[in-house]
């Protein structure tokens, strides 16, 4: 890793330069919120965004994705290629970069997913620093910092960015497209001050002491029934989650019935059909059990396999849940007891 400083006004140069070689994607305003979208004009890039409605996972694992086309007559697969054009994803906060690293464990681990891999290999990542909102709790999982998994990371120092360059590709792009200067001792000191201020700005840190153990100990706790009564089973939490990776696979025939396509679509463990198997058996009939297993998977199941929890504290689910169910509330109920909420 090496470091440079870049005048903030130079961002437009960088975006324009990158656009000559890549599709550039970044946060843009949508009403009062933000989405990651293709940047047509550098002025649309809003690096001061709070968070986006959907996380960047949509660029690696789209909500609906064609896996292959097939012919009915001879049952042949006619097209199953994964293709992705080169692009730069601009403006990822540390939580979102960390989330991609957690997704990699699933899609690039023991069973490599060719679709995800094609998108991942074709995409460069430029991170940007942020300030915590009231729904943020990334500091509870140490995902408020990111040390790898990006090509370039920009830390906002007011009038300039402290630029961390992680990859050779990142260094080359920076060199080709934008004017930067070497860092001074003063820049580093200011970078440290910004990081300290960022850490101080969080709301009270979520207590996650002994969480996996408590999940086992409180398997029959009434808190799950209370949450089940409130949950709408709408699945909004799973859709906006940067680390939810479950999908359903569907085969649809074309209108002429001669061929068809197999696609995968995002699914949610909060739907009763999610656990339905052949013969109509459903393993998680009750809403309470579905809410419970969401937490067991994220805070225990994944942890037991990859030594990390499957949550980065981005707060998107907290915002999306009309029933006001949040990981902060659930974890607090488990750690402190439900009466403490």
């Amino acid at each position: 890793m090496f470091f440079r400083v870049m005048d903030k006004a130079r961002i437009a140069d960088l975006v324009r330069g990158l656009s000559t070689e890549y599709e550039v994607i970044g946060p843009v305003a949508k009403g009062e919120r933000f989405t990651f979208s293709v940047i047509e004009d550098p002025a649309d890039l809003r690096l001061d965004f709070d968070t986006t409605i959907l996380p960047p996972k949509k660029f690696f694992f789209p909500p609906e994705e064609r896996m292959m086309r097939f012919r009915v007559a001879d049952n042949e697969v006619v097209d199953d290629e994964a293709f992705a054009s080169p692009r730069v994803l601009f403006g990822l906060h540390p939580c979102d970069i960390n989330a991609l690293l957690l997704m990699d464990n699933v899609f690039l681990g023991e069973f490599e997913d060719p679709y995800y891999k094609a998108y991942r290999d074709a995409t460069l990542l430029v991170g940007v620093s942020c300030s915590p909102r009231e729904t943020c709790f990334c500091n509870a999982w140490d995902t408020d910092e990111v040390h790898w998994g990006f090509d370039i990371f920009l830390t906002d120092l007011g009038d300039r960015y402290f630029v961390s360059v992680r990859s050779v590709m990142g260094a080359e792009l920076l060199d080709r497209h934008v004017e930067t200067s070497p860092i001074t001792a003063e820049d580093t000191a200011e970078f440290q001050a910004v990081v300290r201020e960022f850490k101080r700005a969080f709301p009270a840190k979520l207590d996650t002491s002994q969480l996996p153990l408590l999940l086992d100990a409180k398997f029959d706790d009434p808190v799950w029934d209370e949450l089940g009564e409130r949950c709408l089973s709408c699945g909004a939490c799973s859709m906006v989650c940067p680390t939810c990776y479950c999908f359903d696979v569907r085969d649809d025939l074309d209108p002429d019935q001669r061929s068809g396509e197999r696609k995968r679509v995002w699914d949610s463990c909060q739907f009763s059909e999610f656990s339905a198997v052949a013969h109509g058996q459903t393993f998680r009939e009750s809403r309470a059990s579905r809410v419970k297993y969401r937490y067991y998977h994220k805070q225990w199941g994944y942890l037991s396999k990859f030594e990390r929890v499957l949550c980065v504290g981005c707060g998107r689910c907290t915002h999306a849940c009309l029933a006001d169910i949040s990981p902060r509330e659930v974890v607090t109920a488990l750690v402190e007891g439900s009466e403490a909420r």
Partner: protein
Amino acid sequence: MAPRVVVIGLASDFGCQVQMTNIEDHLLDVLGLIDLTYWQLASSGHLPAEYDVAIVEGAVTTEAHVEALRRVRETAGAVIAVGACAITGGIPAIASAGELADRYGCVYGEGGAEVACGRIAPMPVTAVIDVDYRVPGCPLDTDEFLRVLSRALQGLSGRIPEEPLCAACKTRENICFHDRGELCLGLVTRTGCGAKCVSLGRACTGCRGIAADANLDAAYALLASRGIPAEEFTRRLSLYNTLEEGCDR
């Protein structure tokens, strides 16, 4: 032999049948696969005595409808109910709340009840006969209709999504109406429409019926806590869901 298909309309505005004519891109593909022996909207003939697949639109509002549906069920190998009227009772079912005779009077004036003889309280097709496939919505979604028709022609099982709309709406990155304090029925409405209305700036009106997974109790409670009283939620639900269980508090 190509499967013989009939399209039957009961009480409705025939909007779903009009939607079928709007499948221009694929209509010829579909027509090449079937023997369309009767289409109420588009043909002047009579319903034949034998057919394999019956597509039924509209609500049941007369004793004659009930009889006709029983015959359809006996005759057809597969019945596809299409549209809100056939599946939840839809807009016609609003009349089932309250005195029917009064309502006939509103429309036909004095003596209206006599004019409307043979009428019964409106109800969905699904309340009279078992159907094999359902394509909900007002009007039906043409892509979904084609998918369901494909499954019927192939003899595959019917599948209807069971969860509320919010998840699909999130994938479209719509700004949530509830964030702006406005009521949207997507939180309890059956998904499968791709959240078209919300994506175009209109709140969901619940035309696809109440999702099997919906938590109506929780929805009533959270809306009340956000300042939307139960009566208002019930009133909005009643447009398409008067007869749906749990929508009447």
